[in-house]
């Protein structure tokens, strides 16, 4: 799915979520929960256009499996409720993710999050300090929560 930057309102803000950000939305014990709630609300209001790679959605589903069984809340429904798009990687994203193998210490899931952000020219929101540090070193926009 292509990201329509106009959805980000006049600011044209475009963001890509890493899996941990969605998981924080589920857990108010986390220090960044309020920040993530605000970001999701901005997406629902159309002030920022947020997406998440389907690869990272798989991580969310994996780690929220017991939560979903207990609460009946499906993570996909949560994304839809807050107007967060699911980005399906095409060959361009696959090539970028493969090229990022030269970066030390990134998993494939890390690389898809980074490659998606680069492809849609958005800011990556992540809870992963290793990934955030790598993106800062390569001068890509990133917010670590």
């Amino acid at each position, binding site marked *: 799915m292509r990201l329509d930057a106009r959805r980000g309102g006049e600011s044209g803000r475009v963001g890509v979520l890493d899996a941990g950000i969605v998981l924080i939305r589920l857990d108010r014990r986390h220090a960044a929960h309020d920040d993530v709630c605000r970001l999701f609300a901005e997406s629902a209001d159309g002030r920022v256009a947020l997406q998440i790679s389907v690869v990272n959605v798989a991580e969310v589903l994996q780690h929220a499996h017991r939560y979903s069984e207990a609460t009946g809340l499906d993570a996909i429904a949560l994304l839809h*409720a807050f107007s967060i798009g699911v980005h399906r990687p095409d060959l361009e994203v696959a090539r970028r993710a493969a090229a990022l193998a030269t970066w030390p210490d990134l*998993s494939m899931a890390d690389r898809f999050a980074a490659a998606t952000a680069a492809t849609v020219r958005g800011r990556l929101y992540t809870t992963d300090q290793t990934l955030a540090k790598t993106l800062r070193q390569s001068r890509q926009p990133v917010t670590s929560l």
Partner: protein
Amino acid sequence: MADIDARLERGYSWLEQGGDDPVEALHEARRQARRRERARRRP
């Protein structure tokens, strides 16, 4: 959205009572993936 909010509230209580930490579970899975990646790259 009201249904989502209600389930989120239920989820907050469930996590607080049960002790699951999905964010930490994600980070641990990624640490393991990185260890595997480093091992794979080792000559």
